[in-house]
């Protein structure tokens, strides 16, 4: 991994009250994964944290400028030069050139940037690229297998589930993950399952129809 360990560096206190903004802005000194999601902490500590320093668990140090990360996107490992504070979304779009996922609200309120990370749907605007290292990242472009659309994509097509289409990659990714977790959902479960995504053209009814149809089709 292209992460430098400097365990003796005194670190700023990392706590639950660190906002995402100040947290990202604080890059150049220290990044703590604990402030975001506990699951990230687990990954970080397993791979990086020295066993002898439990108080420093999950704290890593990055260079402020160009950092080479290896990200596995759509099954392909890519070495990408990123700023330490780059979000996964920006990295996927700008560096990996996969522009299916969109930046809409840039704070996790709309689901437009949804990608799959280790099988779970996440808002890629809320995750740092460095935290995605060593994980399986799948974008909407990666759902196509052997030139064939994923059943969710095919159902979205068949039901004309799009208008302007800007939210659709996010909806497709969330629907794929949702159906993996709940293969036979009721309409109500679909509504709740997709409630983190916004479609301003309001194509919801067609989206529900597509997800229902996909749930009755083949599992990938």
């Amino acid at each position, binding site marked *: 991994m292209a992460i430098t360990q400097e365990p003796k560096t005194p670190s700023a206190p990392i706590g639950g009250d660190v906002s995402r903004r100040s947290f990202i802005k604080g890059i150049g000194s220290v990044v703590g994964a604990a402030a975001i999601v506990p699951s990230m902490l687990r990954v970080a500590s397993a791979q990086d944290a020295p066993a002898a320093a439990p108080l420093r668990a999950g704290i890593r140090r990055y260079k402020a400028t160009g950092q080479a990360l290896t990200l596995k996107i759509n099954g392909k490992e890519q070495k990408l030069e990123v*700023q330490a*504070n780059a979000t996964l979304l920006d990295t996927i*779009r*700008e560096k990996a*050139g*996969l*522009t*299916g*996922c*969109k*930046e*809409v*609200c*840039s*704070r996790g*309120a*709309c689901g*437009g940037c949804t990608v799959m990370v280790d099988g779970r749907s996440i808002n890629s605007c809320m995750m740092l690229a460095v935290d995605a290292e060593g994980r399986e990242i799948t*974008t*909407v*472009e990666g*759902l*196509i297998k052997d030139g064939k*659309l994923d059943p969710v*994509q095919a159902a*979205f*097509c*068949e*039901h*004309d*589930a*799009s*208008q*302007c*289409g*800007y*939210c*659709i*990659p996010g909806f*497709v990714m969330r629907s794929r993950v949702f159906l993996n977790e709940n293969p036979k959902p009721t309409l109500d479960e*679909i*509504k*709740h*399952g*997709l*409630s983190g*995504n*916004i*479609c*301003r*053209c*309001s*194509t*919801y*009814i*067609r*989206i*529900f129809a597509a997800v229902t149809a996909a749930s009755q089709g083949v599992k990938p």
Partner: protein
Amino acid sequence: MSEFWRPDDRMALENDHPRYDVTEKVTGRAKYSTDYYPDKLIWAAFIRCPYGVAKVTNADVEAAKKAPGVLDVQMDKMDGVYCGDHLGTICAESRQAIEDGIAALKLAFDIGEAKTDPLKQLPPREQWANFTPPTGGGPAGRGGGGGRRGGRGGRAASPEEIAAANAAATGADHMIEAVYETQVQTHCCLEPHNVLVDYRGDHAIAWGSSQGTFAYRDQLTRPLNLSADKVEFHCEYIGGGFGSKLGQTPEGVLASQMSVKFNRPCRVLLTRKEEQLDTGNRPGSIQYMKIGVSKDGTIAGGRMVAFGIAGAMSGGGGVRAVPRYKMTTPAVSSAMDVTLSAGGVRPMRAPGAPQYTYAYEMLMEELAQSIGMDSLEFRQKNDVDPVRQEMYKVGAELIGWKDRKASKDQKGPIKTGFGVAAGDWGNGGFGNATVTVNIYPDGRVEVLSGCQDIGQGFRTLVGDCVATTLDIPYTYLAVKVGVSNLPNGPGSGGSSTSRTVAPRAFLAAQQARDGILGLVAKEMKLPDASKLKIEKGMITGDIKPMAWTDACKLINGQLTYTTSDLPEGMGQNTQSQCVQFVKLNVDTETGVVRVEKIVALQEVGKPVNRNTIENQITGACIEGIGYALFEDRILNAATGVMNNANLEMYKCPGAVDIPEIVPVIWRSDPNSPVNAVGEPPSVPIAGALGCAIYNAIGVPVRKMPMTPRRVLAALGGEKGAVA
């Protein structure tokens, strides 16, 4: 059931296939202007005023210029008049550098008093019945229930007319005097306003999110100092516009200036906050109504006074009033705009109409209630439009109107309400548009129009017009739209794109068909092609049937047909009548409203593609749910700062808010040409929801959004915020 509509009637061009570009959209291959990252890209942004009214007391331009990655900083003015106002511009190597540069400016402000309360600018409430705007301050008019379009010129009502109108209201058996309020709604286009301009010395290529390919290009020519033919503008895909991406583009001008200055491609991409503050909105309104009604349900007339609530930089708060119901003496209406220290107005899906319709339909409901008449019967008695009269019958059956009960006759805390509202949209004139159809020897057909597909399905519409006329499978078609070097066409405003372009697409396709048949006739040594036709991809007639692809082999190079003409029979005006029914539940203990079902009957002229039409109708209904129940631009009363300039506290409707929706494509005139459907279905929905809530709880909620708090307040006896 009506003779105008049958559930199994395809009516349309039999086109039920998904939109042409749906695969591009579900795979992420559709490239929006935000999706291009050219080499040497630079970024530019506006330095914005963070308060409603503020004077800059410190701006360290030199320090900002020295910040790493910053290329250019300029302060243009020191006084901001709304939160989000442009004070200057900055250009830098990256978005991070823009943030750093703005931080290095160390902006400081003297914060002034922001105008956030429209009532402070209005005459006292007791004068509204006799209100007429100061000279030149707004329009007046008369008609069977409302004046002409607000915000435009008109004759001011005389004191005598006003007195007569007031007398008509007070002299009737019953009178309703009420004030209805609507809030400011923002567009929330998911793709922010953005543009990428790449100036290359003697020409430029630009990608932008726009509702008007050609108008946008023309705006770039001036800062680029290039003629229109040297600027190629792309907007093949647009992530929503809803009216806010028409008109002026300060972003395009800035990106052009910086691209010229640094000879590099420059992007301006608004943040979500900027998007909420400064890309326009549907203005708010305060509407005073005083109308009388007789016991038999005849509306007597009276006063309708509308105050539009506009932003700092613009008027245009106009409440769009059109006569929909008969009145014995036409109501005398007046309108005036007030301006707040806040972001300006831009067109938004049926500008002015939902505001007015909410107030008008609530009033109708209250009038019907006052004389104890069923509100559907009341509308059927008074609605002036014969098409809507038919719609009422079909819609009532589909929603189950016969189950409607008064609030007091329902047991338990959850009450069910039914509501109905009417709408319409003017369709005047046909703009210019040109369509080209190319046919190639391998059977491919190319359809070209520079117009933009903003999500409504324009690409599909022109493709369908051609595929249906040629009667070939649409898989042969490549439809290219949204580039300024393609044939000219209108911007997508006022529900005009389909109406304007479709006739030309039909005509070009007819010419192409005649061209191919002519080639076949010549090959077969027929005297002419009059007996030939194309049926399901085969050339038939007095010859052995020939496949489309074989016929195309006769083409030498390519066949090209371009037309700007309006074919005969396609130039008459069309109608956009609509009626919407709503069924919903209100929890009278919590005030929470759950919409259960909407029936939306919509006249669309000649329906072309069922999917795109139904998606637009249901989309408008859902946006209307947001407008009526959730969405609100909330300003800090003292500073004019928008408190919810984001997508988590500005409440767009989401998946769990979606009811069952039955869109009904209505075609009263089989010879009607194609009409557009972007605007009309967004007109009645807020009114229908308001009326249904009134039915459910037995008291009117006269202020939007009709939140749980306002529902409870109405139940608690607090009528409207002003009245």
